[in-house]
C-alpha cells in the first residue's frame, strides 16, 4: 500500500500544532500545517494528502465550512475532525458531509495514527477505483 505519506494538520492553537506535527513527523509522515481554513484550502489545492486533521472551532472559517470546501475541492479527501467541542449534532453533520471520522480532544496519538492509517487505506482504494474507471473508459472507447 502506498499513499503520499503526507498529512495536513489544521488548527489555530500554535502550541498544539507544533507538538502534534513533530510527533507525527517522528513517526515517518510528512506534515503540512495551517492555522485557518483558508490556508488549508490553499494547501489542499496544491498538494495531495493522505488525510486532513481538522479542528472544528476556528476563527473566520469554522471546521464545518472548511470541511465542505475541502470536499468540494477534492471529494476523495479523507478528513478527520479533531475538536474540543463536538456536539452530537455537529458530529453527525460532519459525517453526513463526508468526514471520515470525528475525534474529541484530547485524543491519544495512537488513536489518531490508527485513523490516519485507515485514511491512507481509504485513499489508496479510491485512487485504485479511479484508475480502474479510467482504464474501463479507455477500453470502452477503443471497443476492445
Amino acid at each position, binding site marked *: 500500500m502506498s499513499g503520499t505519506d503526507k498529512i495536513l494538520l489544521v488548527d489555530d*492553537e500554535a*502550541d*498544539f500544532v*507544533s*507538538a*502534534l506535527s*513533530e*510527533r507525527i513527523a*517522528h513517526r515517518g509522515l510528512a506534515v503540512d500545517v495551517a492555522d485557518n481554513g483558508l490556508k488549508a484550502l490553499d494547501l489542499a489545492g496544491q498538494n495531495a494528502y493522505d488525510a486532513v486533521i481538522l479542528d472544528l*472551532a*476556528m*476563527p*473566520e472559517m*469554522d471546521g464545518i465550512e472548511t470541511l465542505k470546501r475541502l470536499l468540494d475541492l477534492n471529494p476523495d479527501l479523507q478528513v478527520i475532525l479533531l475538536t*474540543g*467541542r463536538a456536539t452530537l449534532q455537529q458530529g453527525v453533520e460532519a459525517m453526513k458531509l463526508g468526514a471520515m471520522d470525528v475525534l*474529541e*480532544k*484530547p*485524543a*491519544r*496519538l495512537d488513536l489518531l495514527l490508527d485513523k490516519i492509517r485507515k485514511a491512507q487505506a481509504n485513499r489508496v482504494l479510491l485512487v485504485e477505483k479511479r484508475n480502474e474507471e479510467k482504464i474501463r473508459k479507455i477500453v470502452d472507447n477503443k471497443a476492445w
Partner: protein
Amino acid sequence: MPWSPDPRWRDSDLAFFGAVTAGATHELNNVFSIIEQTAGLLEDWCADPEADVPAGCDKILNVTERIARQVQRGTELVRRLNGFAHSADEPCCNQEMNDLLENLLALMERFAAQRRVRLVFEPAGAPVTLTTRPFILEQAVFLAVSAALAGTAAQGIVTVQLTGGGAGVEITITGAPALPEAELPAAVGAWLGPPLWNLEGRVRTAARAGKYAIVLTIPKISEEVP
C-alpha cells in the same frame, strides 16, 4: 434579524450559563490537548536514543515552558469559570462591578476571537459596588456584547466601558457596525427586555457616523439585600 445572537441565550438562563461554560470548557480541552501532546513529545525524545535531545537543553526548556504556559492558562480559566459559577449563589447582593465585568468579558474572549474581533474592557477608575442581581446582570451584558460581536466585522474592536457608582452604573458597548445600523435598536430591545426588567434597568442604542453604542443603565436594585 442579523444582529441577534443565539436566541436560546435570551430565552433561558440555563442556556446562557451553558454557553459560557461550554466556551470555557472547550478552551480547557485545548489546554489539556496541548499539555498531552507536549508531554508526549518529551516521551518521544526519551524513547528515541537517536533524538538530538542531550544537546538540546534549550529545546527541552522550550517545551517545559510551553507546558507551564498552558497550566497557567488552564488555572486562569478555572478561576474565572469558578467566579462565574458563584455569581449565581445569591439572587441579589452587593457586587463589585469591575470584577464582575472583567471576569465575564475574559470568559467571552473566545466568542470574540471566533469572529476575529477584539474585546476591550475599560473599567471604572475606582471600585464600584452595586446592589444588583449579578447573574442576571451577566446575562444582560452577555447578550448585549454578543449582539455587538454579531454586528462587528472581522478585525474590529468592541469596547465595554463601565461608569457610575453605588446608585447605579452605565455599561456602554461600542463598536463599528458591519450590519445595518437601523436594525440595532429593535434587535437589542427584543432580547434585553426580560433581564433588564429583573434588573430594573433600561437600554438605549445609538448609531451614527459608522459607530454604534448600546448603553445599559443599571440602577441600585430596590430590594433589600439580606
